[in-house]
């Protein structure tokens, strides 16, 4: 059984009188795409934000590569190699694409100027353009404020940012929500590529066909707790929806037991990951 890369155990989180998470568990294995699904209000975004350092859990623990960790701030999560594409994108609308890509991680000018605090806008623009091109995000003017771009372009920037910086796990909260057909295809392909490079991807989505296309495993959250976990190959969409509504529970660990030889597309070819 592979050791989980990231694991949440018994997370409890309340906001005032609302108990968003009631002892939620979650597991992310290395090099996989795991989908986190659930009905509205199940606690998916809250769980992701807790693991990303935006919220602090009231109870519970988080383990990273087997060791307990404290993720108090987004910086802590970043240091572990965890990046997030939030549902609201978390972009600064008045800043340009390069500025957003490097937000909080600005490239400083070399030498004395850098130590005085001067940033290298040119370098940031160039490097972010490279990343956008690699990931197929088309922007007419990288110097324009992000607010002047379409929803799809903005989502593309947010996804590029997380993918570019992450070294272990990428959380994506409804990444295709605002996208058209072609862009959705790009993101799904991207998810596959990202996983192949050694990153784990956590995908929150309402879109079952998408989930079934890219995910290796599916974990179901209901009313702030994990109620089911499946290997994608073992289950049907109806079963998953059933778990979301409470008709079925399946919180065993059999989704972890079998080796990953069942995963489609990745067994052969030069890109096949080595075990």
């Amino acid at each position: 059984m592979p050791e989980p890369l990231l694991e949440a155990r018994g997370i409890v989180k309340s906001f005032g009188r609302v108990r968003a998470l009631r002892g939620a568990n979650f597991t992310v294995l290395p090099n996989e795409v795991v989908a986190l699904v659930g009905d509205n209000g199940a606690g998916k975004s809250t769980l992701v934000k807790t693991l990303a350092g935006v919220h602090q859990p009231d109870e519970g623990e988080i383990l990273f590569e087997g060791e307990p960790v404290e993720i108090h701030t987004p910086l802590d999560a970043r240091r572990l190699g965890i990046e997030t594409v939030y549902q609201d994108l978390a972009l600064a609308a008045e800043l340009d694409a390069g500025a957003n890509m490097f937000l909080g991680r600005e490239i400083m000018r070399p030498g004395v100027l850098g130590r005085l605090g001067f940033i290298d806008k040119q370098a940031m623009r160039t490097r972010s353009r490279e990343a956008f091109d690699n990931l197929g995000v088309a922007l007419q003017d990288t110097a324009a404020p992000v607010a002047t771009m379409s929803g799809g372009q903005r989502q593309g920037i947010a996804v590029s940012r997380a993918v570019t910086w992450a070294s272990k796990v990428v959380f994506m909260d409804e990444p295709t929500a605002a996208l058209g057909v072609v862009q959705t295809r790009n993101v799904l392909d991207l998810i596959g590529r990202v996983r192949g490079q050694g990153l784990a991807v956590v995908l929150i989505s309402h879109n079952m066909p998408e989930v079934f296309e890219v995910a290796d495993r599916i974990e179901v959250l209901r009313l702030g707790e994990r109620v089911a976990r499946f290997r994608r190959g073992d289950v049907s969409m109806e079963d998953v929806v059933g778990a979301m509504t409470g008709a079925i529970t399946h919180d065993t660990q059999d989704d972890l037991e079998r080796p990953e030889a069942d995963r489609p597309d990745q067994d052969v070819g030069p890109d096949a990951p080595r075990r």
Partner: protein
Amino acid sequence: MTDVTTQADRPELDDEQERPAPFWQRLVAGSSTPIGLILAALVLVFSVLEPNAFLDTANARNIATDAAVLLVLATGMTYVIITAGIDLSVGAVLVFSGVVSAKAMNAVGGDNWGVIFVGLAVALAGGLAWGLINGFLIAKAKIPAFVVTLGTLGMSLGASLVITGGVDEREVPFKLITTIGTGRAFDQIPWLVIIAFAVAIVFGIVLAATRFGRYTYAVGSNEEAARRAGIPVDRHLMKVYALAGTLAGLAGFLSLARFSTTTIGGHDTDNLQSIAAVVIGGTSLFGGIGTMLGSVFGVFIPAVLDNGFVIVGVNPFWQEIAVGAVLVGAVFLDQLRRRSQYQR
């Protein structure tokens, strides 16, 4: 950074696209250009109406000197408003800083650069103190900026009245008055104007080209996104308000040098004037947008109007109506231009 490459061809990096536009092109197309043009239009109008009076070197010098203190205030206010905040206490902090500075200089006694330096240090410290109080209450205690700075306005002005007994402090080292207050470089440009412009230029560069400046825009544009990106938002806000307070302190020192009295009653509208200057200059009250150059234009538009209306002979009671109307008109035009740019 994970390098994610595709099997498809990487598009050639287009050099032409990546080099920034030449300086003059950025200036012409820049966001503060329309306001600059409006300022130029006003100067033109008054020059045509009263060429001998308005276009005079001495008059230009007077306009600049009259605007110098406000320019220093507007520099700090630009940062504050870009973070989507506001600082109503600047005029009162200016008065407070002048008061404690004057008292300190009189306590030390003498008429030399040493005592002037003491006065400057005390003025800056006074402004910084109120700025930190503002920053702490806004960033940490999460009280809205409007409320906090309204409170510190009352407290700092009240403190000034307590310290002085309600009476202007009118003893100021003579050397201060003759050098910084009324002195000129090369016998032409008043030191007050040089200092004010130096402040605007330095902090304009910081705003445009440093990480501190970028964080200011980021926090104003989307505070939550900045937090999630790991930017220390609370600490940054404290620094911004501390800066505004310190600059108000400098402004108080400069005003003291110029008038040789603390002019307690003369700064009631400084806060609204500096906010108006910054907003006219193109900075959005909602945060994330603005330039220092715009604020400079924004300071000079009311200054030119005030001066021009007196020269042309507008009835003093009509002046306020006229200045207000032109202000609203100028911002309206700028908003129109912005909206057309952002439409998608």
